[in-house]
């Protein structure tokens, strides 16, 4: 019996190992293939990301520089209104300074062409300069004033000088004037502070992203302040306290469905409820934030519930076993352990909200708003809307502004996420 069983065993073992060996190569091949697919897909996504980023940066980096022209502005007696300097004719002063530099331009049409090389913002630059430190009569101010966007495009090489006159926005005469500036070293590209400090404008050289950044900031603040506590309270209640019955099942199904609702529907809801019914001010971060909160809530609730589910039941049992009440279990054990996961959900929701345009269309946040919002109830634009508006503008100079605005949006996003990651790291416990 002993013998036969050994034989039997070895024969059996031999057969099994043969089968295994036969399949082994195929299994390894399969694994290799699978790994290759994985690497390929990662490489493809990395390539696309790299392509996207380079194209944005290549298009947009030049927007961080702005062509400026050094203009000597002689201040003569009587030019500045002594009693009320704000009322002085700064436009006229700039124009006379330009005329002084180009004494040979006399004809009306030529003059208009000449003035158009300079930004209409030059007068405001002079005004601010004069108001900050009033010059004495007879002094000459040397100012770096903004050049018009056409000049800017020419200097950045987006407009060719050697094409026929009819194919460019600056005529030969204007090019000669610019050459004169170049020969005198009076024209150069300087860091574009306007882009980071002002609001939107019809003039590309005066348009800035700061208004939209502020608008986005206030909107996100409203969204976060509302959706984080509400989302977490809802998740904790549904997961830890609510009885499991038909009503809670119904709520759960609806929350999952809400996460898939097209965002423009939330915009319509905001328009109907917050603007028309409650009469809240339109185009404001307050309403925008509330609408985005509605959109973000399902994401936060779903992620938070998953995080709560992932807390091992042994911890709850342990806490209950020493006599904690349910609330104490949740607040001192479950919540701290689930918080990193909840923060992850919040980051995803907020990132989604930051890039959202469609719901904001409905509540009037696509309006052309020049002023920088100072609070939650000031009309404001947000960054994605600003990008959308600029992408829609015909001027060539807005192309680079659009890319630059995308870069600022990505920077904002990265800053926001970095903050959340730091917070998560802080709350994370070794498990």
């Amino acid at each position, binding site marked *: 019996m002993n013998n036969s069983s050994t034989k039997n065993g070895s024969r059996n073992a031999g057969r099994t190992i043969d089968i295994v060996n036969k399949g082994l190569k195929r299994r390894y091949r399969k694994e290799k293939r699978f790994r290759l697919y994985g690497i390929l897909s990662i490489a493809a996504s990395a390539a696309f990301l790299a392509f996207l980023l380079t194209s944005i940066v290549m298009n947009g980096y030049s927007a961080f520089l702005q062509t400026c022209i050094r203009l000597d502005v002689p201040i003569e007696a009587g030019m500045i209104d002594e009693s009320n300097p704000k009322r002085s004719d700064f436009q006229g002063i700039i124009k006379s300074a330009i005329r002084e530099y180009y004494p040979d331009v006399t004809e009306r049409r030529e003059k208009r062409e000449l003035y158009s090389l300079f930004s209409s913002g030059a007068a405001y630059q002079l005004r601010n300069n004069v108001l900050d430190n009033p010059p004495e009569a007879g002094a000459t101010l040397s100012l770096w004033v903004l050049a018009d966007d056409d000049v800017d495009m020419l200097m950045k090489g987006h407009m060719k000088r050697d094409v026929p006159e009819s194919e460019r926005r600056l005529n030969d005469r204007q090019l000669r004037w610019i050459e004169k500036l170049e020969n005198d070293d009076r024209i150069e590209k300087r860091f574009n502070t306007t882009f980071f400090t002002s609001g939107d404008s019809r003039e590309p050289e005066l348009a800035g992203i700061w208004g939209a950044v502020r608008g986005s900031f206030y909107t996100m603040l409203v969204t976060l302040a509302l959706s984080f506590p509400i989302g977490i309270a809802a998740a904790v209640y549904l997961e830890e306290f609510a009885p*499991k019955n038909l009503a809670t099942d119904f709520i759960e199904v609806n929350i999952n469905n809400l996460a898939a609702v097209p965002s423009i529907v939330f915009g319509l809801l905001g328009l109907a409820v917050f603007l028309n019914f409650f009469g809240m001010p339109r185009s404001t971060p307050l309403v925008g934030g509330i609408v985005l909160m509605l959109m973000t809530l399902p994401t936060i609730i779903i992620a938070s519930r998953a995080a709560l589910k992932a807390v091992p*039941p042994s911890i709850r049992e*342990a806490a*209950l076993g020493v*006599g*904690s009440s349910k609330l*104490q279990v949740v607040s001192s054990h479950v919540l701290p*352990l689930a918080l990193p996961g909840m923060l992850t959900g919040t980051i995803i929701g907020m990132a989604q909200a930051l890039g959202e345009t469609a719901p904001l269309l409905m509540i009037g946040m696509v309006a052309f708003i020049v002023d920088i919002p100072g609070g939650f109830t000031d009309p404001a634009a947000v960054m994605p809307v600003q990008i959308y508006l600029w992408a829609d503008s015909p001027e060539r100079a807005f192309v680079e502004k659009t890319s630059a605005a995308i870069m600022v949006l990505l920077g904002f996003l990265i800053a926001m996420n970095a903050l959340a990651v730091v917070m998560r790291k802080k709350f994370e416990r070794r*498990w």
Partner: protein
Amino acid sequence: MQITAEKKESTTSVATESSKREIFLPPDRERVREGGTPHVSAKNFSIFYGNFEAVKKVNADILSKYVTAIIGPSGCGKSTFLRGINRMNDLIPSCYTTGTLMCDGEDIYGRYTDEVQLRKKIGMVFQKPNPFPKSIFDNIAYGPRLHGVKDKKTLEELVEKSLRKAALWDEVKDRLERNALGLSGGQQQRLCVARTLAVDPDILLLDEPTSALDPKATAKIEDLIEELRGSYTILIVTHNMQQASRVSDYTMFYYEGDLIEYAPTKQLFTNPKDQVTEDYITGRFS
């Protein structure tokens, strides 16, 4: 090969072999003869999961300050019964009970019973060590803090006392501020015992406290039970019959939800009244 052949033989003829198998001889404990006062009494006590009756109409008195072991095959309802005593089963939505379970003359499932207070009185240690992901000190101090001890000095004394009782003080006294998850499995389990002792319970429920531990750590936990004997009413669920015979004064045997036999440990292991009990303790099934 020979071993397997023999095993094959033995499974086919269990009945004739049974007399040869070893029976663990539990120590004869003097104090068992004195009897005791009931601490927890079950009367027609059943626990249901939905329609399934996991514990069937149990009638038993668990005696004060004695160690009672609960044994039985997997799924026999022994853990359910244990968890029923401090209402841990309330966490399971479909679970309900019938009959009465009294503790110190108070109905555990009574309408006015506060489960938080109940669980303070009836502490529990679980199968898998489950320290909080906090420092050792905070693990022990968590319970007392919940119940209103704020004074740092009192807390420190309490922590030391509890850790000493759980025979862990000497090992951890220099690293009370370290995370409890850095302790070994056996130390973690003793920490869980200490955490339970810190809220000063009357009854200790141990749900297979050594099943996740190695023999050395198991011995320490058993020593600990030996030490606590006489100060607390202890109930221990175990799969290990030697352990039951070593540590307990009384033993309950559950089978398919029924309390088959409940007797002084020595009597149950040497002279079981019921055939099923005998089959189980002689290892004919598990």
